[in-house]
């Protein structure tokens, strides 16, 4: 089993994920057309009570809502904390008020967001008091504290007035005129985008008085993270026990009032076991009772589930996958060479490296099914470019573009290129297919195979390394919006000297300008259309080789009424119950 970081999609998942958020995706997963039949939506008459066991190979990285950023962490964090907005499990496209009392009010100039929070939400013991808007203000401010070190705060909340210099202290642009109102004043028109980010756990309230009395944020790492049992919880559950890398237990939050929450919270308790061998744990879940997986099951287990235990497995779309081509460096600074590389790619073989059709749909562009703007970008068929027309690859089209790029023979005749790939399956297999595709086109490739973390932190995320091809990258948006999908990965302004996720280093002024326009749209329909157009432009400029819209498999015991949170493609512990 593997854990997925929000943002970049992990490589080693046996069958991994497409992003978000929509009905088309959902229907396939829910109805089992991808090989699974498990009913994973909320149903009438779900039973209350009992304890669920969750098994995962990976442990939790950060359970502090201020620093939490992994899919695995989110499964727990969203059961014990209440951000301003969150998603009902079956609808990943439309956030609903959680701690907030109503939808966010975005000003006409797109520079102010106002949120009313609901009354009656109380912290768990020992804090016990009612949540106020000041707690939300403090929660976001502490995200800028280096001891908390939230990874996305500067990206999504950096436009708040005073946030550019924030180190954890008060931010002038976050104002709380009364106990139930919070106002965000921005330095630029970014309010519609920032409102989307209020679904992230950073907006879950944190009591400043409690943190300061315990001096939890004064150490690095924060005590709120290293010992999550000390947290002040607002969700239906509390973290009762935690042993890093070993186990975690959830119990009911005695101060949680169901009248203030849309979550049913059927289970009395959850015990989470970390470190399970994926093959053994998968069999235990399928043959045992009261169990679900916490991270992606092993490939043999997925195969077993998809063939013999279809009523216990489901597939949920989440994220995209592609091969990045460095548009800053020759030969991929030539759009025709990029188009040739795409045309030569056998995307069916790429899909097979991850398990075939159950792994997900073959991608024709970057926004995945269900993402706002997917249909506007061409839907499943894509924008209609000839270099993406044949999923098996088309060497004639590839030769045509190479000739246009000055390679008269139709085969690439330039110097060797550098490619980096994962050394663990299934990404390792995808790298081999990419290598072969490039060789078929005449490329001489210097290929280096390293661990997944090394692929990113040492090579592909560091432009100075001058890697020309990253064999298998992917993206999981932080929230369902074209901005979260495409801005970090294809906007020239997002290119960073390290930790760079615009792996193709794509910097097209027209596309950048289109993104600025799309980002400024405040109406959902117009916004989706604008981002769809951006996606179409990126695809037509052959910024990378899209090959998959991922599916995430999940398995459950027969006596579990599992409910998948489709925005996270994992079990929603606040909705899952026992039969």
């Amino acid at each position, binding site marked *: 089993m593997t854990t997925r970081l929000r*943002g970049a999609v992990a490589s080693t998942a046996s069958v991994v994920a497409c992003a978000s958020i929509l009905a088309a995706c959902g229907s396939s997963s829910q109805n089992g057309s991808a090989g699974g039949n498990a009913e994973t939506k909320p149903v009438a008459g779900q039973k209350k009570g009992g304890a669920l066991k969750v098994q995962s190979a990976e442990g939790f990285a950060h359970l502090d809502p201020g620093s939490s950023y992994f899919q695995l962490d989110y499964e727990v964090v969203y059961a014990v904390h209440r951000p301003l907005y969150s998603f009902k499990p079956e609808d990943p496209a439309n956030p609903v008020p959680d701690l907030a009392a109503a939808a966010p009010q975005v000003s006409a100039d797109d520079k102010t967001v106002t949120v009313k929070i609901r009354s009656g939400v109380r912290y768990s013991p020992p804090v016990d008091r009612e949540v106020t808007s000041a707690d939300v203000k403090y929660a976001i401010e502490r995200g800028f504290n*280096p001891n908390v*070190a939230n990874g996305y705060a500067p990206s999504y909340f950096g436009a708040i007035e005073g946030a550019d210099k924030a180190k954890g202290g008060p931010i002038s642009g976050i104002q709380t005129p009364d106990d139930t109102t919070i106002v965000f004043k921005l330095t630029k028109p970014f309010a519609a985008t920032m409102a989307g980010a209020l679904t992230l756990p950073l907006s879950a309230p944190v009591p400043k008085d409690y943190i300061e009395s315990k001096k939890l944020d004064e150490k690095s790492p*924060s005590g709120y993270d290293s010992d999550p049992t000390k947290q002040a919880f607002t969700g239906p559950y509390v973290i009762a026990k935690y042993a890093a890398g070993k186990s975690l237990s959830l119990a009911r939050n005695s101060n949680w009032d169901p009248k203030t929450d849309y979550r049913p919270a059927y289970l009395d308790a959850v015990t989470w076991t970390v470190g399970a061998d994926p*093959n053994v744990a998968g069999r*235990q879940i399928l043959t045992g009772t009261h169990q679900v997986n916490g991270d992606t099951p092993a490939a043999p287990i997925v195969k077993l589930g998809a063939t013999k235990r279809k009523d216990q497995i489901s597939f949920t779309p989440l994220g995209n996958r592609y091969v990045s081509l460095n548009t800053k460096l020759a030969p991929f600074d030539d759009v025709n060479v990029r188009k040739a590389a795409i045309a030569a790619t056998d995307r069916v073989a790429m899909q097979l490296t991850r398990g075939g059709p159950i792994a997900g749909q073959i991608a024709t562009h970057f926004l995945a099914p269900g993402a706002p703007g997917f249909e506007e970008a061409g839907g499943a068929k894509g924008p209609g470019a000839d270099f993406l027309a044949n999923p098996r690859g088309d060497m004639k089209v590839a030769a045509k573009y190479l000739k246009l790029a000055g390679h008269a023979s139709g085969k690439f005749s330039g110097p060797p290129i550098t490619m980096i790939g994962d050394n663990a399956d299934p990404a390792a297999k995808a790298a081999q297919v990419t290598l072969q595709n490039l060789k078929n086109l005449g490329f001489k490739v210097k290929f280096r195979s*390293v661990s997944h973390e*090394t692929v*990113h932190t040492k090579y592909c995320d560091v432009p100075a390394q001058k890697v020309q091809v990253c064999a298998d990258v992917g993206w999981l948006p932080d929230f369902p919006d074209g901005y979260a999908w495409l801005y970090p990965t294809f906007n020239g302004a997002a290119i*960073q000297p390290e930790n760079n996720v615009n792996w193709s280093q794509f910097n097209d002024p027209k596309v950048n300008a289109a993104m600025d326009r799309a980002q400024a749209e405040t109406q959902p329909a117009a916004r989706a259309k604008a981002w769809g157009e951006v996606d179409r432009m990126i695809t037509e400029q052959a910024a990378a080789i899209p090959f998959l819209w991922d599916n995430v498999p999940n398995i459950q015991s027969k006596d579990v009424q599992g409910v998948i949170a489709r925005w996270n493609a994992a079990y929603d512990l606040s909705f899952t119950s026992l039969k």
Partner: protein
Amino acid sequence: MARYIARRVAWMVVLLLVVSAVTFLIFYSLPSADPATLRAGRTASPQLVQQIREHLGLDRPIYTQYWLYMKQVVLHFDFGFSYQNSAPVRQQIVDRLPATLSLTAGAVVIWLAVGLPVGILSALRRRRLSDRLAMGASLVAISAPVYWLGLISLYLFASDIGRFPVFPGAGSYRPLTDDPGKWLGSLVLPWLVLAASFAAFYARLLRANLLETMGEDYIRTARAKGLPERQVVLNHGVRAAITPVVTVLGLDIGILLGGAILTERVFNIPGIGRLAYDAIQHSDLPVIQGTVLFGAFFIVFANLVVDVVYAFLDPRVRYA
């Protein structure tokens, strides 16, 4: 003897220093992941990554990082915090040590209880059917990878997924202090799996040594003196033949206390080995360093114990 032990302890400290330095060097010289960017997350700005790097001390020269690390270890027995999950390394190691100790202790008892008698009997019944069967079986046990054997044993005998549900399966480990009965039950399969190859190896080793020893002149002399055969074998033969076994035993115990990675992984026993495995997966240097130092300590300490035991086993060995 006291001077000898003092000298060995001093060498042990030097060796641990060398091991820790080499671990540091390997981590930084091989293309491993950058902990600061892993900690920061995918959309983090370079400024945030730099802040984290500074907070973790990763921006300092490697020798400074090493010096600060060793200072904390020596003065405060503080191994730092995990980059991966923010938990203190010392606490994680201490939490997991009982599981590894339980696994190792039980496996050692089993492999000695099986391996030594089989080795002696095989040597005494050389080339007979029982010898050939025992040595054949030992070859199979040595050849079977622990990971494979673990999975097979679970699929056959685990109470949850086994064909013949007899023993508690993976993930059933309970600390001895919580429930002695469940502790014992949960470790039966892991003990048997871990002990299998060791028992086989010890049986073959002791058999070979004993065969050689029983041909020595002093054995003939002992028999000529009219000593009972049982006394000849146990007091003269086995006592001499077992010294290499003790050497290997010391090393094996040390290595296993550093973590029986595969066994812990298959049976989901939260021990030192699994901690080390997870740390390597995530380039979690403080945890890697902590587990390597613990493993090295146990190996060196076990060696010291073995050398001291030698003096009691073999009258010819004297330490100045």
